[in-house]
């Protein structure tokens, strides 16, 4: 009997160890094609707002993190099959996604999505609008009555407007802002509020990591360091916490 208990304790202990070891390295999955949220910089490394937030979260939660990039299309399947442990890729918290994966609290406040076009008087409700596949923006365009033109990467949605394939592009306003400022695109139509902000996506079975990241995000909100990063990457007009 004693042996049995000892064995059970040893078992429980090793299981506990294995569990703690489970996240000796947290693999952070991102898209790497959505500046300034996340992008591959000229040195070939992941850079941007989410890189800085992610690194700070890992520091506060005392995790060792490694960054990996994955195509947007298959970013959720690769998370649930365990190829990486988080999605930190400008992914808005929505009810549909929440059925498949879990989200931490948001680290980017609910923000506007906007239309950009070559001329400001494009009727965005009755024209061809480009959006990235499987985004909340694509869902919104499909419901708005406009013709939806989907692309795999954000960059291609902008290129489609510039070469006349689409009349307008619909995306996060903060993504389009630098493009509107530096090219001949202008804002068109009204801004739209979509989603509940951007959170870190996690497997539903990964409650422990979720708690750690939630606490780290809260501490960044409390001491204002998150606001500093928001202003650094998105300018002074950005909504802060």
């Amino acid at each position, binding site marked *: 009997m004693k042996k049995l208990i000892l064995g059970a304790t040893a078992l429980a202990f090793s299981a506990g160890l*294995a569990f703690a*070891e489970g996240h000796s390295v947290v693999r952070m999955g991102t898209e790497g094609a959505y500046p300034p949220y996340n992008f591959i910089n000229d040195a*070939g490394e992941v850079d941007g707002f989410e890189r800085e937030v992610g690194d700070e979260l890992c520091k506060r939660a005392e995790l060792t993190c490694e960054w990996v*990039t994955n195509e947007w299309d298959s970013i959720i399947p690769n998370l649930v099959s*365990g190829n990486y442990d988080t999605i930190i890729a400008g992914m808005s918290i929505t009810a549909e996604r929440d059925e498949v994966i879990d989200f931490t609290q948001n680290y980017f406040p609910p923000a506007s999505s906007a239309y950009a076009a070559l001329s400001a008087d494009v009727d965005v409700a009755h024209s061809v609008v480009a959006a990235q596949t499987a985004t909340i923006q694509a869902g919104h365009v499909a419901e708005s009555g406009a013709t939806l033109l989907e692309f795999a990467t954000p960059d291609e949605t902008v290129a489609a407007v510039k070469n006349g394939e689409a009349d307008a592009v619909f995306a996060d306003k903060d993504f389009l802002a630098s493009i509107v400022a530096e090219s001949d695109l202008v804002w068109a139509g009204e801004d739209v509020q979509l989603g509940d902000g951007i959170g870190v996506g996690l497997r*539903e079975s990964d409650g422990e990591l979720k708690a750690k990241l939630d606490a780290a995000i809260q501490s960044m909100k409390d001491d204002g360091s998150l606001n500093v990063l928001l202003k650094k990457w998105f300018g002074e007009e950005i909504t802060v916490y």
Partner: protein
Amino acid sequence: MFSFCSDPSTIDGLSWLACYLTNGKHMAFWGSFGVVMVLLAITAPAALMFGFGGAMAARSRVLPIRWLGKGYSAMVRGIPDIAFFLFVPFALDQGFEWLRHKVKCPDWDEPIRQGNDFVVCAAAKMPLSSSPQWVHETYGFFLAVLAFAVVFGAFAANVLFGAMRAVPHGQMETGVAYGMTDRQVFWRILVPQMWIYALPGLSNLWMILIKATPLLFLLGVEDIVYWARELGGAKTSIFAYPHPDWRLYYFLGLLVFYLSLTKVSETVLARLTRKLSHGQATMAGEQQRKAAA
């Protein structure tokens, strides 16, 4: 790379271009050409082995083995490549992890499938989450090679099956008449002569394989098409080397690369055809015989 590259905003013209083409991202781009070549070099023989095995199984006298061989080529050829590429590596990966999980963590009491999640113990992860990124990339690369080999092997099996039947039957009968066993007839008479009949089909497969490498990105392997799209896209001033949409130039570059690869392949295949035709009862073989006589 060069000393004058430290501040790209102050340089222009050729030195800007020199710095631009040698930054970290472009180095990864140049490296990805190597990835594609290595993939082709490993996949082609692997697919040929799958194909040979499939063709041999399809000719077997034992009914279940024959079913296996025919079923393999029929099934894989019937499924769209993209569906196959999304399914096979995930299934293989989860299969490996499931096996390792059963061996390494027999005491685990939680279910492996939790809703959508696939959860195995940390020690069973392939590769371990603590391994460096290059291990993950190499692992993904070999999953890709395996998926390519299975798909192209099915097509090759069909080509080789046809080629084996195209070898004149009299040759085999002669072999038997000389007292050779079935095995000897197969390896010494059929196999050496079937390649000339298989070559047109196999060369088609090789060309398709060259063009299929962009499917790699579905599996997370960053190949030349991924980098061309990523590098060519318009870059705002958040990047050190801002530029407008240059995808046209990058894809023109890829066009030249693929066309030269095709040209080289055609030259090599033409030589191979000439060599394999030697002494064969085909038109090309007959011409060679007459020219020599």
